[in-house]
């Protein structure tokens, strides 16, 4: 069968179509969410075929309403995707555009417990994007820039607005911009680690979501946690993969 998973995130939309008979990926696409996510979904789905489609991500309800497909939460989707890529995974950290999720998994890959940030987007991709803008660079370059910075500076606030004013003060004191950028990355890592600790992770940790592309966050995360950490080759596609896997499971159950 052709099983499709679409993950409508706050920043990007991801589509994965699996051919379960041939055990291969037939479609693998990503695009910006824009201000009109439904149109973008229809565009990314255009030309693809599937027997069953499952939507996930914050826009899942939108696609469900339009296409009548099933949905799962991004928490289940990331758990499924990470478990497929790394069967020995015991916890998943997903940092996306506006949400951070820490998930602990049972041995069979089922979600055991999870934590998620509430209404505030502190410590998420949005936070990094906002800060990168303050350094006048694209968010894609922000991580490698921060890696050049020295350790030692601290940003205490988790709030995007307060953290920015802290960063501004540090700049005004003449500190090295890269070191300030590093401190901002440290604050994201600290917050994520404390969320992870609440789900009592052990064993292998998989880091997924768009922020896992940030090298500085990955490096700092490895220093902060005691467990092994793996980043999938395409960390932001894990949710869409999970949704497609769920479609296979659901079709088998029917």
């Amino acid at each position: 069968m052709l099983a499709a998973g679409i993950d409508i995130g706050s920043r990007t939309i991801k589509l994965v179509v699996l051919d379960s008979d041939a055990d291969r990926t037939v479609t693998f696409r990503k695009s910006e969410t824009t201000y009109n996510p439904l149109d973008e979904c229809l565009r990314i789905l255009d030309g693809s075929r599937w027997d069953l489609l499952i939507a996930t991500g914050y826009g899942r309800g939108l696609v469900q309403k339009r296409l009548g497909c099933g949905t799962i939460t991004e928490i289940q989707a990331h758990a499924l995707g990470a478990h497929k890529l790394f069967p020995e995974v015991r916890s998943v950290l997903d940092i996306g555009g506006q949400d951070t999720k820490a998930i602990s998994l049972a041995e069979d890959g089922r979600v055991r417990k999870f934590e998620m940030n509430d209404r505030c987007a502190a410590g998420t991709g949005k936070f990094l994007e906002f800060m990168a803008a303050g350094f006048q660079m694209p968010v894609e370059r922000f991580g490698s820039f921060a890696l050049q910075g020295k350790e030692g500076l601290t940003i205490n606030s988790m709030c995007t607005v307060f953290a920015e004013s802290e960063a501004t003060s540090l700049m005004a004191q003449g500190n090295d911009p890269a070191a300030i950028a590093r401190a901002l990355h440290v604050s994201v890592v600290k917050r994520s680690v404390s969320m992870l600790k609440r789900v009592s992770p052990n064993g292998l940790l998989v880091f997924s979501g768009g922020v896992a592309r940030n090298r500085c966050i990955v490096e700092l995360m490895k220093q902060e946690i005691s467990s092994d950490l793996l980043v999938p080759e395409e960390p932001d596609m894990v949710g869409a993969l999970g949704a497609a896997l769920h479609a296979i499971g659901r079709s088998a159950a029917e």
Partner: protein
Amino acid sequence: MSETYEQMWSELGLDLEAHDALLQVLGKGYQDIYMSQSGRAAGMEYFNFVMSEVHGLRVKELLDGKKEGRKVIGSFCVFVPEEIVRAADAVLVGLCTGADFAMEEVEKLLPRNTCSLIKSAFGFKLGKVCPYMESADLIVGENTCDGKKKAYETLDKLVPNLYVMDLPQTKSPEGRALLKAEYERFKKAVEKLTGVEIDGARLKRGIEIVNNKRKAVHRLAQLRKADPVPISGLDALLVNQVYFYDDPIRFTDSVNKICDELEERAATVNGAFPENTPRILLSGCPMAVPNWKLPWIVETSGAAIVGEESCVGERGTRNLTDASAATVDGLMDAIVDRHFLVDCAIFTPNPDRLNHVKEMKDAYGADGVIHYGLQFCQPYQMESIPVEADLENHGIPTLRIDTDYGMEDVEQLKTRVEAFIETLR
């Protein structure tokens, strides 16, 4: 409804324009959340009616009663003993605390980090939109949490008739003695207000009326043990909310009628949700009308709520008052004993509550527990962490939600609740 009651509301001093806006929001919320449910009991029609007249006919009844000398006492808490109020032929009503209103005004008097429930009471007062508060001859504030007891100092300046009841914080003999003394003092205050001397026969009658009301909600709770569950959690919550407003005898009859209907339904396996729908026990802070946010999210995310470990729910109504004593003092002792069992989080320590959560989880066949904490409600938020840890140690899936009356976090909550329900399937 507006035109019929406009004069009444304006005589009560309500701000008609603001009140109208409130009723519109309330009406729309009820329509969207309640009337969109399918497979409801026919008996819920009564509760639809009560809600449509919650600021209308019910208030008129109270005012008509007042003309005949029936005093109205307003309360914010289940520790205010209704038995004593009924014994004096007075009426006890719960005051409005379930929605944000006039927040800019409220935050001039209370810190921002005050829980929604306390802010709401002030909002209804300052916005002049609670006909119950304006009808009340006496408003009882009770020293439960720090937030409430300090807020009453401020409320005292806004209303002419606040009576503050002290409450114990420990389940010790000294704590019980304090509660007894406070209930004796309250009895005297009610006697003074009503001009009625409360004798044994009156107290027994008061106890009987209130016990019957409790027994009716017990009966409803029993029915929710069935799978499929015959009534939605939203509807059951509404019944528990109307408990605080309605005429007690009419309320008891109406709940019993619903139970008759649901008993018949159960025989034909006709549930409010399909069989094997994941079952949730809610535990935590009370949900006053029209605070339906979390139950609405849960029940539109594929689960059914089968019980509420809450003051608007089983914590408030679990125990009956023993009416067997022959003397006024004996009956007052029974009322004290009954209320002293309420396992509110203001007590320290408070082990009974955790035990009740586990008992209810088993009794109602819940698959998981959602702990509901109002942001800035220290007692329940503090308890939520050990409650969650203990439940999880017992293998009971638990989700801890802290939120307020605002709607900005609905999407995030929906994701969390849905993900929790996914783990229960």
